[in-house]
């Protein structure tokens, strides 16, 4: 069917229905799921594919699955080729076959029409636990993927309408959080079933041929829009660099290099990294692809659709098989969706910022968190708790806008919620001592980073095990286009325990600890990176930040060159002029 023959009304309806299908799957997961990573961190993605499977629509969900949901769906479709039936529901989590990391479990339902496969409806959800040595699935001691809990290759949990009770029981029986995980799997199944119902409604109304013609046009439109965006970017070869910190197994810092080549209406992104590590910091290609796409679309109009057509214009090379960003079995990878994900995005953004400085977006705080687990003294049931407020550092600034406070890693980009303190205390045997913004935690710039937080909690009536995971403890989030990320204790993650006897115990990353009542866990996630020279930040904006306690009087003078009277909080105009003009000859970077 030619482009001309498609009725614009039908096209709009098909597009709108695909969008509302992904949205509706998200609502079901949002409102009915149990795992904190799912219900609060909202660590899920929803998408619709055609029979291909080519991705037609991805929900406004978390970016870390941008590429992974495509590669998982392709792997599952390939595996079951010839055995795909109406009423099937597939399930999958294996990084070796297109998955991201094991906690991300994908439910897929083939949708049939006129006896042929027409759509795949897919959702990817991070579940509480994957079994294995360490609660929550992030094992800092793992040297290979076998130490990270169970692996689910492409399987069917529902075969021609019959639920595979045995298979579901095997999965939920392998994890600590059996009841919650069963509830989460039901939510995933509910979501794909709703999606199938809606798509059948669409097909009933317009017929398969018309819907197929619209799909082709939507993919073409996605490609046209993406190519137009790229064509408007200056041609050239741009290089970006970023760093990943030590993995706890003595890796030392790892360098990531990215080369972006823009030619006409297409671009190529090439990644280089060291050989894969014997720790959980490796990336299989699905996660690397997600990170590259996120880095690129940062510089693209947000209205460009995120479908397979749009991605046709972007070539990707992950580096040689067996390198850190293109890992092969049996590499461990449980941290990959945040580390090195965050650093990959930063390398791509760094390269892109050289082509388009006025669209620059600085780095967000990296992922560094703790997972608590113990039997709840009130019920005896084991809980697995992610201390989310303690990991939510500031978002990166963008050209023209300060960063958002407490956004957490760029891998979730604002999808993750901290949760209400009261709901957390209601659900878990914990007491919160404080949760606020932390002064001076953001990197200074014409547009400063969002602030990080200060957070302290204590177990009530029981002893608990805590694993400390992640990175962002050595390097502050990177700043761009004339701003620097001055190293400072408040600009990296800090964590310690104040024991009941008053002694303070600093917590290294990649470690395990125990807490009893009276022991208080403290976490200070850092602020985000900045954009632009801080001495160009309007004096009034600096003064407002000081008045609001976001920036101290000392830092206002030292980093922004703005002199403020500590008692009246008024600006000393003359001293400010002197400071800012004296600094004008020096580079901004500290």
């Amino acid at each position, binding site marked *: 069917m030619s482009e001309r023959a498609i009725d614009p*009304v039908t096209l709009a309806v098909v597009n709108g229905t695909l969008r509302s299908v992904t949205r509706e799957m998200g609502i079901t997961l949002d409102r009915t799921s149990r795992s904190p990573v799912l219900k609060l961190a909202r660590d899920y993605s929803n998408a619709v594919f055609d029979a291909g499977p080519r991705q037609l629509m991805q929900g406004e969900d978390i970016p870390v699955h941008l590429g992974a949901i495509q590669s998982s769906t392709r792997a599952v479709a390939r595996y079951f080729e010839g055995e795909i039936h109406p009423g099937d529901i597939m399930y999958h989590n294996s990084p070796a076959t297109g998955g991201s990391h094991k906690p991300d479990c994908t439910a897929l339902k083939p949708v049939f029409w006129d006896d042929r496969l027409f759509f795949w409806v897919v959702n990817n959800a991070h579940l509480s636990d994957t079994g294995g040595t360490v609660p929550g699935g992030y094992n800092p001691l793992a040297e290979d993927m076998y130490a990270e809990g169970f692996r689910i290759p492409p399987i069917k949990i529902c075969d021609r309408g019959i639920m595979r009770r045995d298979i579901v029981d095997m999965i939920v029986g392998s994890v600590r959080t059996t009841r919650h995980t069963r509830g989460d799997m039901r939510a995933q199944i509910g979501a794909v079933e709703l999606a199938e119902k809606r798509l059948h409604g669409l097909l009933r109304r317009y017929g398969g041929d018309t819907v197929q013609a619209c799909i082709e046009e939507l993919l073409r439109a996605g490609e046209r*829009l993406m190519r137009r965006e790229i064509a408007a970017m200056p041609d050239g070869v741009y290089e970006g660099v970023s760093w990943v910190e030590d993995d706890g197994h003595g890796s030392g810092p790892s360098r990531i290099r990215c080369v972006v080549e823009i030619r006409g209406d297409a671009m190529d992104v090439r990644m280089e990294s060291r050989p894969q590590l014997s720790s959980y910091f490796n990336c299989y290609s699905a996660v690397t692809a997600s990170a590259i796409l996120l880095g690129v679309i940062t510089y693209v109009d947000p209205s460009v659709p995120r479908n397979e057509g749009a991605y046709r214009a972007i070539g990707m090379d992950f580096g040689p098989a067996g390198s850190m960003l293109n890992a092969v079995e049996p590499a461990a990878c449980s941290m990959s969706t945040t580390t090195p994900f965050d650093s990959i995005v930063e390398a791509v953004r760094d390269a892109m910022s050289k082509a388009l400085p006025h669209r620059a977006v600085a780095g967000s705080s990296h992922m560094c968190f703790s997972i608590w687990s113990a039997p709840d003294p009130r019920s005896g049931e084991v809980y697995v708790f992610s201390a989310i407020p303690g990991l939510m550092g500031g978002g990166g600034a963008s050209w023209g806008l300060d960063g958002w406070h407490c956004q957490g890693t760029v891998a979730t980009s604002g999808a993750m919620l901290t949760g209400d303190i*009261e709901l957390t205390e209601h659900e878990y045997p914990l007491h919160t001592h404080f949760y606020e913004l932390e002064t001076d935690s953001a990197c200074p710039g014409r547009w400063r980073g969002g602030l990080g937080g200060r957070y302290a909690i204590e177990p009530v009536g029981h002893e608990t095990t805590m694993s400390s995971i992640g990175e962002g403890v050595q390097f502050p989030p990177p700043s761009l286009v004339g701003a620097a990320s001055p190293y400072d204790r408040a600009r990296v993650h800090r964590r310690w325990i104040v024991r009941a006897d008053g002694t303070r115990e600093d917590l290294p990353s990649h470690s395990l600890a125990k807490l009893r009542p009276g022991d208080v866990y403290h976490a200070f996630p850092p602020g985000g990176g900045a954009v632009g020279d801080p001495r160009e930040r309007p004096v009034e904006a600096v003064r407002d930040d000081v008045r609001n306690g976001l920036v101290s009087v000392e830092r206002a003078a030292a980093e922004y060159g703005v002199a403020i009277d500590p008692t009246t909080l008024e600006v000393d105009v003359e001293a400010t002029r002197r400071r800012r003009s004296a600094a004008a000859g020096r580079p901004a970077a500290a």
Partner: protein
Amino acid sequence: MRARIGIDVGGTFTDFVLVDGAGRLFEAKVVSTPGDPARSIGEGLEALAAQLPAPLAELLASVDLVVHGSTVALNALIEQRGARTALLTTAGFRDSLEIRLAWKEKRYDWRYPPPPVLVPRHLRLPIRERITKEGEVHTPLVEEDVHAAAREIRRLGVESIAVCFLWSFRNPAHERRVGEILAAELPGVYVSLSVDVLPEIREYDRTSTTVVNAYVGPILRRYVEAIETYFAALGYRGAVRYQQSNAGIASGAEIVKKAVCALGSGPAAAPPAGLFHSRRFAQDDILTVDMGGTSCDVCLVRRGQPDLAKGVDVHRYRIGVPMIDVNTVGAGGGSIAFVDEGGILHVGPRSAGARPGPAGYGLGGVEPTVTDADIVLGYVDASRTLGGRIGLRPDLARRAVHERVAAPLALADEVAALAIFKIVNNNMARAIHEVSVERGYDPRDFALYVAGGCGPVHAWMLAREIGVERVFVPRVAPAFCAFGEVVSDVRHDYSRSVAGRMDTIDPARLGRLFAEMEEEGSRALGAEGIAPARVEVTRRYDIRYVGQIYECVVTTPRGPLTAQSLREIVERFHGVHQSLYAYAERDNLCELINVGVSVTGKLAPVDLAERRAEGGGPPAPIGARPVYFEERGGTVDSPVYAGDRLRPGQVIDGPAVVEEKATSIVAFPGTRLRLDGATYVLAAV
């Protein structure tokens, strides 16, 4: 019944409805005067009196109830013109208002700013105190902190204070004591305690709601004082009531205390207006669609009760008190049609607003809107003047459609206009889908009521879009909410947090909570002149499976509580969960988070006088005009009728157009239109 007046103040127009003692209905529409609302109210009242005709004083002497809907609270929030507000929080938790649970609405837009925080950080003052989740005092209230805060507040010229402490709903002693100290130290300053506004678990929702209440409270208080003074000066002796977000009305004294409940004042009157009309047809499951100039408001009503939502974001500010669940989409007469760079046609959500308005208004607009498409298609009378001032310019409407849509897509002008017409209908249908299908209801089981100035043009095709063969268009469509205001009952909502498992909760404890709320409600209604016999009570349970963070709602009438009745409520919860999310977990534990009570004071029902039936004969058209119908493959010369000359029982077969004072009802080919009481019914032949 004595006469009633409904006054609905909108951004552009203020609508008036009068139902007189004989049940006759009068309408008026005047241009709003936001700086001086009394002026537009005066003009509208004069316009009503002129229709009787009678002097204004005589009209007011016959009225016992004036109900007022106003966007004053909402506009103060949207335009950031609320009171200078301070917030007192538990020390160590000063920033929940600004952190917003870390929620960012658009995560793929890196240049999307957070909403302005209503209380800047230096006005958020920490107070040392802490209550535990059990309601015990962990850290006693440090009163010196409160005195220091009061001094700071006086120094900074703050007009309003919100107080929200952690777990205060479990033990309100600290908040209450702070309220006493502030009242003594800062007389005249508006103080909002979270335990009064929203005594429920979730400190972010509670803080945000209390802050919004404090932020709009003083503005609303001044407004209500001005309205009451104005009516008193006119010698009016009856009651003045205000429309609330919960679709009920309340006295000035009540709404000023809970100003946040006035945010939805206006659109929330659509369900009562719809229910009034649907009574005649014995329907209590209805959908109302109010399509105005900039947007379209959709509400779903089941069993005569509109859906209420809690925890929604109103212009990005979290509101925890129940509001009529109005689904607003950018699908109005002013919604702009455009072809994107990928060659795809979109309609809205951007709107041409009142200025410049649609291109066809001739006020400088060049982008084609839905109204322009309607003009090109002949659905809107091009000889109409709007508000007696604006003459339509069909040439400009056509030019906009041609240049921005028809030419880029290589379509004929009428075909392009029809595409715009259909896409906006589809957008509205999707909004209906969101409140029905996405919540487990089939829209075809609901009677569709379409209103607003633009709705009657689109009514039939919207009905087709959602698969129904019949649609209802009230004659009062252009003043639908003003009418809804005069037929609303008095209503108040209360809630308490429970947070306990359904299988272990003590029915007697629940009974005490309900009794407490019902008592509070009866007192408020009593002060508003409602006799006890006219009070109705609905109870509400917010339940979820253990481990979830959102609840489903089950409502029941008042009645004795036993372990058995709680089990029945659990069973109903499973059913609600199944219909919403396609599954239920009968093997899982349920917990009750909040309970609530709605008390309704029923007012005497309004009855409209019927038009006299006329003996025999089909109606005579007053003219004809060319109208585009796809079914006929082009433009057809179609008869035009005057709505005010139609008699009950007369039928008109499409294609035809019926002109009302401020709107047009389009009867498409294959449809039959009939006036039934105060409602046009359009149905497939």
